[in-house]
């Protein structure tokens, strides 16, 4: 900030911490919330889900490609959730039926979706890596496009419909998890499959449901990236968001509301990074190194896992295949 005086600095801070930062945070947190809540269903059932990144990519690519042909973002969104579910089902079969190492299988899915969208888009659109641009009016709408609102309310209706839906999903997930028989079964299967089995719960079937649900939600999170925030799919466009979602899930202690808050925190860190670029300078006159802000979610996760900020305890049977006969 050079020889910046106090007033100048305050003005700069004003530039950064504005209402637009709030919206930027919501925008950036939205895909994280979808993926992290997806991961919650899988991990609460006892299946590690490292594949959120790949599931998001599957959703993002499918949404962009289908919307391009179908001219409707809702069809694209539905296709993305189906694609996510299908890929997650493959993961579930490999992990649950064939008792594969869940981390290894998840890594396989992640690598698969670095390559598969590129090959498919190369064949469909003759461009390896990206899909053609979807016209603006065929993208997922903001609330203002759905609900006509007076201009002074625009600030509230300028968020994507998917962001609002994410909030609904978090609420529903809380309800399902703690107030329904399915939620109780999901949690018991993740904590103590033997006891659940003895109580007559079909452990593997519940786990299939958990993993497939994670695919549906992560797929929608990916769709938001390609046909909400952006207007096309580009190679590896998730850029690690699946892993940040996983981090948020751990930071949120595998609970829906806390997980959402963690996503908002990580989204906020991202938003600040973007807004600071070129605006704020270090006292020495250099740009603030964005790399250090980018590290925050990852550092926080390591610290939380080590138990420095409260205990974050994973579901008891997380990552342990369940073999009825064993």
């Amino acid at each position: 900030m050079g020889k910046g005086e106090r007033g100048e600095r305050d003005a700069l801070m004003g530039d950064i911490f504005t209402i637009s930062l709030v919206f930027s945070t919501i925008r950036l947190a939205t895909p994280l919330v979808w993926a992290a809540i997806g991961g919650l269903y899988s991990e609460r059932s006892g299946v590690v889900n490292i594949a959120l990144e790949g599931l998001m990519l599957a959703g993002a690519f499918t949404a962009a490609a289908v919307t391009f042909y179908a001219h409707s973002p809702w069809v694209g969104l539905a296709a993305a959730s189906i694609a996510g579910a299908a890929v997650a089902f493959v993961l579930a079969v490999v992990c649950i039926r064939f008792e594969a190492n869940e981390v290894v299988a998840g890594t396989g899915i992640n690598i698969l979706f670095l390559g598969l969208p590129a090959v498919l888009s190369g064949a469909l659109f003759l461009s390896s890596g990206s899909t053609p641009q979807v016209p603006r009016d065929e993208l997922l709408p903001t609330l203002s496009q759905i609900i006509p609102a007076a201009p002074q309310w625009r600030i509230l209706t300028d968020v994507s419909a998917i962001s609002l839906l994410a909030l609904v999903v978090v609420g529903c997930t809380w309800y399902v998890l703690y107030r329904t028989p399915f939620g109780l079964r999901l949690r018991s299967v993740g904590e103590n499959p033997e006891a659940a089995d003895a109580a007559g719960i079909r452990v593997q079937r519940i786990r299939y449901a958990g993993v497939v649900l994670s695919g549906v939600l992560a797929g929608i999170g990916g769709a938001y990236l390609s046909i909400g925030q952006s207007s096309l799919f580009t190679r590896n466009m998730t850029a690690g968001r699946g892993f940040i979602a996983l981090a948020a899930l751990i930071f949120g202690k595998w609970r829906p509301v806390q997980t959402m808050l963690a996503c908002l925190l990580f989204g906020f860190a991202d938003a600040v990074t973007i807004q600071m670029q070129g605006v704020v300078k270090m006292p020495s006159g250099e740009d603030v190194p964005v790399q250090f802000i980018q590290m925050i979610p990852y550092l926080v996760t390591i610290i939380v896992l080590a138990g420095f900020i409260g205990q974050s305890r994973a579901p008891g049977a997380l990552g342990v295949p369940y073999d009825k006969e064993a």
Partner: protein
Amino acid sequence: MTRLRELLFPLVAVLCAFAVGGVVVLLVGDSPLEVYKLLLGSAFSWPDGIGYTLFFATPLIFTGLAVAVALRGGLLNIGAEGQLYVAAFATAWVGIKLTGLPSLLLVPLCCLAAIGAGATWGAIPGLLKARFGSHEVINTIMLNFIAVALVGYLTQYDYRIPGDPIMESAPIGDNAHLARLGRFVPGLPERIPLNLAFLLALVASWLVYVLLWKTKWGYEIRATGQSPGAAEYGGISIRKEIVLTMAISGALAGMVGINEVLGYRYRYYDGFSDNYGFTGIAVALLGRNHPAGVLLAALLFAVLQRGGVPVDAFTQLVSKDIVQILQALVILFVAAEAMFRRKGWGRGKGASGTR
């Protein structure tokens, strides 16, 4: 019989991966035979095919060994990617800072920097697990991102030549260069970046074999991996083994930096790794966590990588990304090993019958 299965199973997994990959090619609208001919055929020409294939295999041998050692110790190192980035940067850093030293001193120092930095970055998740019990998988994933950000920061702000638009460090001193094999092998031009690091990779494979099966250290690592409870009862300190195993694993991953910086680009180039750390997982699994298997698996993936170039150039629709798909399929099929036993299917059917 089990010996035979050890050998047969990876082959079957690869064939299955190729079969499914072939279906993808078919769906896309190309001929699988044509694509596979290009993929597998271009690696064996002399000197370019063989030279580049061995060059591509070098980093995969290192990361494959890294993952294999960790798995033998019962740990899953998803962090080879971060370890090799930190190590490559450290290699370049020594190569830039100590340019005045003679080659005989500087090259070993640079290699030590690679090994030391990789071991340190690998030991962190080991320490975290030993001290706090936090799972190495999550921590290594997180450390990958931290490594990339950290090294990116150092490159961008401290070690880039001012005005250079590319994210790369200044070049290392000439004394730090590792000789290319073209200098010793007649008929192999020096433009092919295959260098002494490849021989180092072979030596490392042999050393890993000796370490794991001929030394007390290796015995303790394997004992911990197979049955931590029994190992502890037998007087082995599990915590020490965890840290040690992760440090060795990280050191092996870090040696990628020697090939990349000292033998190929002669500088740190940001984002150089073509997912070597993750491919290392596939290499280790396919190689059954044995150094000899790792060598063969690394060669297979290197052949595919080399073959990706002509696939891009000579096919109508399929791009070289088919290589990544094949890699992923190999990982999935190897992971789902139970699929290839009769028990795997039988149990599934039997269970659904009783439901």
